[in-house]
């Protein structure tokens, strides 16, 4: 298997993951509860980390991984903030 073909496979997989993100967007928009939306966006964040890692491999740009790491570190923040907001109304941080 040549390196170019491998890169194309990585990029095609990244495109499929973006399609999956659009599918997951249905749950984020349709809901019905806010908890569904928060979970959907959390999955989208994990999806983003995977897409960035695949693009880093496919395009040969290792610094994409830095941005993927920032997302992996910050992804839980929204879920925590909204959970606190729902449980104790008024408290976010």
């Amino acid at each position: 298997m040549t390196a170019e073909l491998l890169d194309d496979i990585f990029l095609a997989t990244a495109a499929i993951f973006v399609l999956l993100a659009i599918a997951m967007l249905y749950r984020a928009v349709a809901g019905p509860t806010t908890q569904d939306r928060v979970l959907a966006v959390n999955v989208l964040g994990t999806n983003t980390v995977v897409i960035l890692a695949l693009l880093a491999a496919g395009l040969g740009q290792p610094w994409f991984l830095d941005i993927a790491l920032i997302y992996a570190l910050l992804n839980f923040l929204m879920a925590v903030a909204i959970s606190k907001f729902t449980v104790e109304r008024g408290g976010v941080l």
Partner: protein
Amino acid sequence: MSLVAYTLAVFILATAVATALFRDVLSAIVVFGSYSLGMAILYTLLLAPDVAMTEAAIGAGVTTILLLLTIARTTRPTSEKIFERVNLPAVVVVSAFVLVLVSTVLGDMYAVGDPAAPVWANTEVTQYYIQHTYEDTGVQNAVTAVLAAYRGFDTFGEAVVVFAAGVAVLIVLKREVFA
């Protein structure tokens, strides 16, 4: 790459429209988070690491918390309907305007790396940065090098302004957030 970019454009458009149309503010904030996810990947694809990192840090972390703080201190109108009613004549007018704008402006835009682009009009300056950036700063991306090294004091000043704004907001909110 273009395949990823086009599917990403669909994703970003869908999240943007959903954010604009949601009646419930909390849902709009959540979906806006996914909009910033898409934008961060797009910035990364366009090889703008500084912008992508800012979008990742601001979009995933700060914006959500600031908006949540805002609705925690105000009232959130609850209603049975999920989406706002769309004003069809307004949609037609706005899309016509956008169509005219895109058809007139996009055709005149230069492609990435086009030698006829205005950035090459002052070749001396452009060439200086392209040739000397790596030796001077050790940063491979010229844009990042200009922002963080050549214009370091400017960026430092921006950071001070943002810090002062944050301190001011914390004082106004009267909460011991860091306690």
